[in-house]
């Protein structure tokens, strides 16, 4: 095993920062009171939650009354889609989304089919970005919701959220965006972008796992997902995860402080990596638009080899990354996102995603660029798909 850990999988999850941990600590064993109680350690917990709510609201230019804490980004997506669908079914039962959404959105839409809802999955273009005209064409009389992710979790492509927001507003259709990957990487203003519902998750920006939030614009007609106690203004039952919520507040405040500067740093790492890989490894494909992508996202396919094998070799060098191969998804199908951008199955199996955070350094990238090419060469030499007569190395 390697002595160091070079962590290039920040789209999967991030390390909880010291500031976030410190802010959470008191709410685990000092101010542990149930926020619904009347005594001081309960009242103080409640106060801390409200401060966190204001921080989340400020980060996306919402009102704190429009922020509801959840147990995850997935819960926020489920709530947004099921909640709007069930509350507005008398108006119509049609939903529009894309074919590259996170499973939290796709599987929720599939589930709603049981209740007579229909979903149009608008295909993205080869660059991994949806054309707003295709969304427009999918709109029907009975469309009640458009759900399009802000940025894709696998290939990092940034969707035309402003244009979709304008379209939805003009057509009087609710607009939800899964912004789980975008928070802290792209400035987001829900008012300017005409967003009605937005999902986010703390652990993607150095906050803790198990806490997220849903922004619900004032006036949006939405049913509850969880039924029980009167927490979150009777909108989301469950005793509040005080420490988690406080951690989310601290994390989002830090993550959204100076986005352009951080994005510039990540973009530099990204470009260095992509250029270094292209220079040193033949038969490589860069997935997703080269420009309109998350500043810290690299996603490439190496032809003739399979992704999990690459990851296992990288792990031996202490490098953490991920892949969209079937073997890493636990099914026989490779990533739906890579298939959606038109890659054939055998190439999609050979994908590698590297997602950086501001803690990564150029030295770490140099190490990756030194170790990866021989791994690829070695696996290709073992592959029956690799035609040696075409071999350049």
């Amino acid at each position: 095993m390697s002595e160091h850990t070079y962590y290039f999988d920040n789209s999967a999850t991030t390390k909880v920062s010291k500031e976030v941990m410190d802010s959470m600590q008191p709410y685990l064993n000092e101010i542990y009171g149930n926020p619904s109680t009347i005594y001081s350690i309960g009242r103080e917990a409640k106060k801390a939650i409200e401060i966190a709510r204001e921080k989340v609201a400020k980060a996306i230019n919402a009102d704190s009354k429009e922020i509801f804490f959840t147990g995850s980004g997935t819960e926020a997506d489920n709530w947004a889609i099921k909640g709007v669908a069930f509350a507005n079914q008398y108006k119509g039962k049609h939903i529009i989304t894309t074919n590259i959404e996170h499973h939290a959105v796709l599987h929720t839409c599939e589930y709603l089919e049981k209740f007579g809802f229909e979903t149009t999955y608008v295909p993205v273009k080869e660059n991994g970005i949806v054309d707003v005209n295709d969304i427009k064409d999918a709109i029907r009389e009975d469309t009640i919701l458009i759900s399009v992710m802000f940025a894709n979790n696998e290939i990092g492509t940034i969707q035309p959220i402003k244009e979709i927001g304008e379209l939805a507003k003009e057509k009087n259709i609710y607009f939800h965006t899964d912004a789980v990957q975008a928070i802290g990487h792209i400035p987001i203003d829900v008012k300017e972008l005409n967003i009605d519902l937005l999902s986010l998750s703390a652990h993607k920006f150095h906050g803790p796992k198990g806490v997220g939030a849903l922004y619900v614009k004032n006036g949006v007609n939405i049913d509850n997902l969880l039924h029980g106690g009167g927490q979150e203004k009777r909108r989301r039952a469950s005793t509040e995860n005080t420490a988690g919520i406080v951690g989310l507040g601290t994390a989002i405040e830090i993550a959204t402080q100076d986005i352009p500067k951080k994005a510039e740093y990540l973009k530099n790492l990204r470009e260095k990596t992509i250029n270094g890989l292209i220079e040193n490894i033949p038969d490589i494909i860069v997935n997703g638009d080269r420009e309109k992508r998350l500043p810290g996202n690299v996603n490439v396919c190496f032809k003739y080899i399979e992704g999990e094998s690459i990851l296992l070799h990288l792990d031996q060098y202490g490098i953490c990354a991920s892949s969209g191969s079937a073997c890493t998804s636990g099914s026989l199908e490779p990533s739906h996102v890579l298939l959606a951008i038109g890659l054939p199955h055998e190439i999609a199996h050979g994908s590698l995603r590297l997602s950086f955070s501001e803690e990564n350094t150029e030295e770490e990238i140099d190490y990756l660029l030194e170790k990866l090419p021989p791994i690829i060469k070695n696996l290709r030499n073992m592959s029956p798909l690799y035609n040696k007569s075409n071999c350049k190395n």
Partner: protein
Amino acid sequence: MEEYSQKVMDHFMNPRNVGVIEDADAIGEVGNARCGDIMKMYLKIKDNVIEDVKFQTFGCGAAVATSSMVTELVKEKTLEEALKITNKTVAEALDGLPPIKMHCSNLAEEAIKSAIEDYKKKNEKKE
């Protein structure tokens, strides 16, 4: 994710018998690229005994490890003995596989069977 056994990792990191036998007496290929794994086995057979075996594999860690292990299991065995090797034999020899990876051991068994079948077909023609 469930961990691979040390033996799987050993055969993955240092696979035995990788490559091509140019004048192979039999070749077997199973799996398909669509599903993310292909195994190709090359056999050199003399007097009903597998004298040499090499493989090429496109696939995950378990696919590579099971390919490597099965080549060790069949080397210097008679065809009858080689045909008795099952997916279970391969998995056990590797100290087990995570449940979702068991299909990789099927491929290893099938690859050997496919190669031996190829050999038998070729020999029928000769006779």
